[in-house]
């Protein structure tokens, strides 16, 4: 077990304590705010997903909200079908509006909960793999990756808005039934739902950390530093990049499913430009090098947004803007960077002192016995 992994584990443990104990404690383990907090956790999760591809592998995915939104729509489709059981043909109301004859084939499988839960992970992963194959085999890097992911997301968003017969269009998929998870009817204002979201977040982070600290993670960090050199060593760079990209997409998909559950609707704004850029900001504020830090960034910024908008009705966006600028200017590695620097500094001091102590001992050892006073 190396030091990096140990530090990761400690950070993860602290984060878990924060999410499982401190956050619910702040609202006395009850109340409507648990629902907001669950929402923040879902957003923190997608920030962590971005950190996995951006911070570890250096792939800046400006379309992270695509897989997030796809997850949300998948969950919403299942819940919409449950809510539409009594309607003619079991068809969602908006399909009746736009004169659709029968439930389209690609809606059919979403009657099944198991299929839905699987699809919420695997379809985002599939999208990422497909995109990854084209991008990374073509050795596309840097800003071009950002442009491609961003434009793909916007294209999908436009498609969803225009195909309202099948997608609910601009309004999204609304009027959902509550989720029934193997006999447990989920109430999104309950503590148990909050813990469901928290559990998914922690599981997602565990998967991500596992990847980062595996051998594949080492290769990914090497790729981030210098892809050419890694290629010369004989590694299949594209495959590793796709792995990180797809894992990140899967985590974002789960986050999206949770987000749709919290808000009880899916909307094309979930895969919009503004949320996608917001995800980048959250990850940057928390620190993109660490998934836990990025998740904390997502949670913290959204919490601050919630509180600031409450306390300072007019000026809160300005205040938030100032915080972002300050972070980018003074903490380019985010809050994680601050912690890491402090840690390195203390570590350096510590080793220095150890070295000094060792030196002194050596000096002592070199001196004649008679000079050592009490030592006989």
């Amino acid at each position, binding site marked *: 077990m190396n030091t990096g992994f140990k530090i990761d584990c400690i950070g993860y443990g602290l984060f878990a304590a924060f999410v499982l104990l401190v956050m619910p404690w*702040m609202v006395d383990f009850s109340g*409507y705010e648990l629902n907001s907090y669950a929402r923040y956790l879902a957003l923190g999760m997608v920030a962590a997903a971005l950190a996995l591809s951006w911070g570890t592998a250096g792939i800046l995915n400006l379309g992270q909200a695509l897989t997030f939104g796809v997850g949300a729509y998948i969950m919403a489709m299942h819940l919409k079908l449950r809510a539409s059981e009594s309607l003619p043909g079991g068809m969602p109301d908006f399909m009746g509006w736009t004169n659709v004859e029968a439930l389209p084939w690609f809606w059919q499988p979403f009657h099944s909960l198991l299929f839905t839960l699987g699809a919420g992970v695997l379809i985002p992963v599939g999208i990422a793999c497909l995109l990854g194959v084209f991008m990374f085999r073509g050795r596309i890097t840097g800003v071009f990756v950002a442009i491609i992911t961003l434009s793909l997301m916007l294209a999908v968003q436009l498609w969803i808005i225009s195909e309202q017969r099948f997608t609910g269009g601009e309004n999204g998929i*609304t009027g959902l039934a509550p989720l029934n998870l193997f006999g447990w009817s989920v109430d999104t204002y309950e503590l148990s739902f909050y813990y469901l979201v928290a559990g998914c977040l922690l599981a997602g982070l565990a998967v991500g950390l596992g990847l980062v600290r595996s051998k594949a993670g080492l290769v990914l960090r090497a790729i981030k530093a210098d892809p050419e050199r890694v290629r010369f060593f004989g590694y299949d760079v594209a495959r590793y990049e796709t792995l990180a990209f797809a894992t990140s997409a899967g985590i974002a998909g789960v986050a999206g499913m949770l987000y749709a559950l919290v808000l009880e609707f899916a909307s094309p704004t979930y895969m919009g430009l503004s949320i996608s850029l917001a995800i980048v900001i959250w990850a940057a504020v928390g620190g993109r090098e660490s998934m836990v830090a990025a998740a904390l960034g997502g949670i913290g910024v959204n919490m601050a947004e919630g509180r600031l908008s409450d306390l300072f009705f007019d000026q809160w966006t300005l205040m938030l803007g100032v915080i972002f600028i300050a972070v980018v200017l003074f903490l380019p590695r985010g809050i994680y960077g601050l912690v890491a620097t402090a840690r390195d500094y203390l570590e350096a001091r510590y080793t220095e002192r150890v070295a000094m102590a060792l030196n002194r001992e050596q000096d002592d050892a070199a001196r004649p016995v008679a000079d050592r006073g009490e030592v006989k």
Partner: protein
Amino acid sequence: MKRRDLLKGVAFGGVAGAVSLSGFPGIWTGRGTVLAASGDIPVGVLFSQTGAVAVVESTLHDACMMAIEEINDNGGINGRMITPYVEDPASDPATFADRANRLVRRDNVISVFGSYTSASRQAVLPVVEGQNNLYWYPTLYEGRECSRNVMYGGAVPNQQQQDFVPWLKENFGGRFYLLGNDYVYPREENNVCRMILDEIGGEVVNEEYVPMGHDSFSSIVSRIRRDEPDVIFCTLVGDSDVAFQREYRSAGLDPDRMPVASLTRSEVEVAAIGGDAAAGHFSSAPYFMGHESAENERFVEAYLRKYGDDQVTHFVNEAAYFQVYQFKAAVEALNGEELTPTAIRDAAVGLRFQAPQGEVEIDANLHTHLWPKIAQWQSDGQAEVVVESDERMAPEPYWAYEGQVCTANGLENA
């Protein structure tokens, strides 16, 4: 210091920080603004003042707040003041849901006034239905909704089209070119328009949808020139409406021969289009700023005095204004009984109020009986009402759908 000690310190600091946070619950869970004094009536005000649709939606906020202030200045409701809890949902559906939650679950408001777009209304629905609260929605919309937790203050398709489409056919001819933005409202209005045209022997020469915000209309204008319709039946909104009307004008089309008949164009859009380009075209709505009535004069005068002479009143902020008075009348009717959203809703049914557009009434299906008007735009940016319905028109949100009726028991299939 060994690393283990350092980490212990960090862990301790984290816990200490958390303790200090929970030691100030006011910062995290309390309300920033003043809490309602006992006896006051808490209501939520949820209109976007920032973001994409803020230009229009903020005027609904203004009209709503003006009504609340007027009521409070005149002694409140049975001596109780209305306390507005204002939130800015920033034109984002997710934020709408979040802020509605705050209002309904934390601030315990007994009604929320809010929303302009359908998307935002639908985002709020799970919250108000889940908590059985009451949402006062002032905008015209596509109908086909029958929530028992929403008071619909705007027109539904039958109230905008039942008189309008036959009138257009009579005056200009029955060949219609349907043009709208691609979302549910235009599609539904056009479904209804087709039905009416089928009935009265008109025809649809083309039906076209452009994406939201689309603003280049040269090819559409040339298709219009080719098809030579009698009427351009228009449900474009916002920037698209403005861009289309300008393109129409610069192409030299003639409003006397081929007028644009809009369901969505109000004084706000015309101000952006420019009076000259909009002049001669028609809109159908229950209210126009130029409508002549004592109530409207008072409303317009008070509004301009409060928010500036460059402002306009229009068919959505008029509803945002009168809905507060409907709320007041319902609370008065309860006469000291316990104020709950459901009690207010039930008391509101059948209430009449002399609104700027005329005397409106709340139907058992929670939509509003309104006064449809047809108006022609003038070059000064105002509308001149040319046809005024001589009776209040009942709202039928499922008008186009045989066998479905929205009643006091919700949606019923006959």
